């Protein structure tokens, strides 16, 4: 009798296990659809024509035949690539601006932030009443500063300094924006490195700078990459400052996308193509460098 009971118990266990599996994968698929459908929708819409949009066709090749209409209006379809296109020129200009500004700002922030985080982790400073923990807090507290507080003063100051619509102006603002995050990440990275390493380097005759650049930097390079990528994403997507502080010369991609949205009677296909082109670089970054992004985001959060 006991054997049968046991069997029944095992069967019930298995049934429950299968039910659990079903629920888990069901939820996973549901959320994957929630995450991916907007992307799929945007990409597929960029290949639609007006009737397809109005009929709400969704599945390509089954519901509608993909066409290059949207991409042609952007000058990026295969047949339009050989021709000159003002829209494409503008798009490439904005893309270059975005890449240059976010790249430079992230690099600068990683440079300044790493130095500061290292110094604060290794040496003790005294500046008036401020000690290390106060200086750290001063840097990290910048995180809660809403951009809007600085936006209008920057606007006025930049106007006086002739920095409006310049690369330098926007790079400086973006560096400021991501610096606390970089310091937060790098502080965590340096804390994992034992001081004995540098002590040995100093004994061997390296200066502090030598020990930092030859011993420490190679060790925290992965952390620096993570910080850089996270900063890059934030800068690439930034809109508020870019909209206020740039006009024609140094507009970034989000500003271009937003300015197209505002106009009435927009072509869905060309907007979709523009959005797709704007987000694809970061989608690739997300897929390829996911490990670094996660490393950056979780630094300092879990002890």
């Amino acid at each position, binding site marked *: 009798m006991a054997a049968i009971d046991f069997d029944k118990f095992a069967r019930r266990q298995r049934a429950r296990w299968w039910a659990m599996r079903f629920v888990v994968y069901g939820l996973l698929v549901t959320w*994957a659809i929630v995450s991916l459908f907007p992307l799929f929708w945007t990409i597929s819409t960029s290949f639609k024509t007006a009737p397809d949009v109005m009929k709400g066709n969704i599945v390509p090749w089954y519901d509608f035949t993909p066409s290059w209409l949207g991409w042609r209006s952007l000058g990026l379809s295969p047949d339009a690539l050989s021709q000159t296109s003002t829209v494409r020129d503008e798009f490439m200009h904005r893309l270059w601006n975005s890449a240059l500004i976010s790249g430079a700002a992230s690099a600068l922030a990683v440079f300044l932030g790493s130095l500061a985080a290292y110094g604060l982790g290794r040496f003790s400073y005294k500046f008036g009443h401020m000690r290390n923990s106060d200086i750290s807090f*001063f840097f990290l507290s910048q995180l809660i500063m809403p951009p809007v507080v600085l936006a*209008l003063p920057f606007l006025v*100051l930049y106007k006086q300094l002739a920095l409006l619509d310049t690369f330098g102006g926007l790079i400086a603002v973006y560096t400021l924006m991501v610096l606390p995050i970089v*310091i937060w990440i790098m502080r965590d990275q340096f804390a994992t490195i034992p001081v004995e390493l540098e002590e040995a380097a100093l004994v061997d005759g390296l200066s*502090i700078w030598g020990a930092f650049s030859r011993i420490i930097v190679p060790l925290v390079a992965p952390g620096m990459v993570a910080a850089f990528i996270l900063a890059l994403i934030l800068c690439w*997507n930034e*809109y508020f400052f870019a909209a206020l502080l740039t006009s024609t010369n140094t507009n970034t991609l989000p500003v271009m996308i937003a300015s197209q*949205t505002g106009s009435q009677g927009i072509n869905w296909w060309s907007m979709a193509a523009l959005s797709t082109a704007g987000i694809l670089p970061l989608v690739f970054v997300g897929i390829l460098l996911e490990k670094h992004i996660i490393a950056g985001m979780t630094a300092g959060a879990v002890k």
Partner: protein
Amino acid sequence: MSTMEGDLLHTVETGSISASRRFWGYAALWVSAAWFAASFMLQSSHDLGWTQLGFENWRPVLYAYFIWAAVLCATRVVIHGEAGKKALFVLPAALFVVSMVVFPLLFALWVGFSDWNLASPTGRQFNGLDNLRQMLGDAFYLNALINMVYYALAIVVEYAIAFGLALLLSQEIVARKFWRVTFLLPLMLSPVAVGWMVGKSMLETRFGPIARLARWLGWENPSFFGDPLTAKLSIMVMDAWTFIPFMMIMLLAGLQSLSREVLEAAEVDGATKWQRFWQVIFPLMLPVSVTAVMIRIIFKLKLADIIITVTAGGPGGATDSVTSFIYREYRDRSNVGYGTLLALVYLVIIVIGMTTMINISDRIVKRMTGRI
């Protein structure tokens, strides 16, 4: 970070610094400072109309500042030797932040108490407390502040979903990396693009797929930005969609760092899944949760891009965040003075609010984690 007594990394001073080296260091420092001060004064008097002499704009003063800052950094080493090298780690970042934050903030205080329309030729006019008075009577600003409370409250739901997803991802599942990357993707997208992708196209009332779905589910005339409540909810959903992965990743990291022994002990003791979650996992996750929620609140308080691009604050200010409101206040009236004052008041509210919240949450975490 714990306060430290003395350097963690000890260094030995090699050689002393000669008096002449010190002298030239100080000399360079004072010369560059004097140059900066002189150019600043010259340009100020030029702007005030006292002298004809001056530059076209303030750029040269900025260059003088750069030179002074560079000389300041370099002379640290010249004057103080090895100790100066240590200072050089923090000094550049500190100088940068001070000149980019502290100075503009002081400037903001000056701007905030003036009537300054960038388009008008009269320029800045000091108007005392007029802006403050105007703010107290500004129903739209108050409305934007209240909206921020609603937006912040939405984080509770975001947190619950993010926790659920983190739990899902920490299960025994195949292709974990695929799911993780998929769930992470929305975070990569710029709010402006999301505003178009979701707000303008998927929620479009005639052709948008979500509108179609809503119609199919029996909602006669789906309009997501027509009335205040649904408009606010739509904005919340879009913002949540982009930021849920952020909290999810942090919570997932927290879940993975939980000690196996504790979880197994709870299982051996016969705790049900439900009990295990509420009495073991959830309390252990509190510190991570607090960090994740705090950072999320900080980001939420900056919410603007989606609102500016999708609804521009409409209908009737129902979706306005403080940032988008001030942005339009500037765009429509180019009144820098009033906008700056509103922003400063917002900053004060945030600082007070965040400090209180951090204190309260610290206490709660201590009590909860002290119990187990």
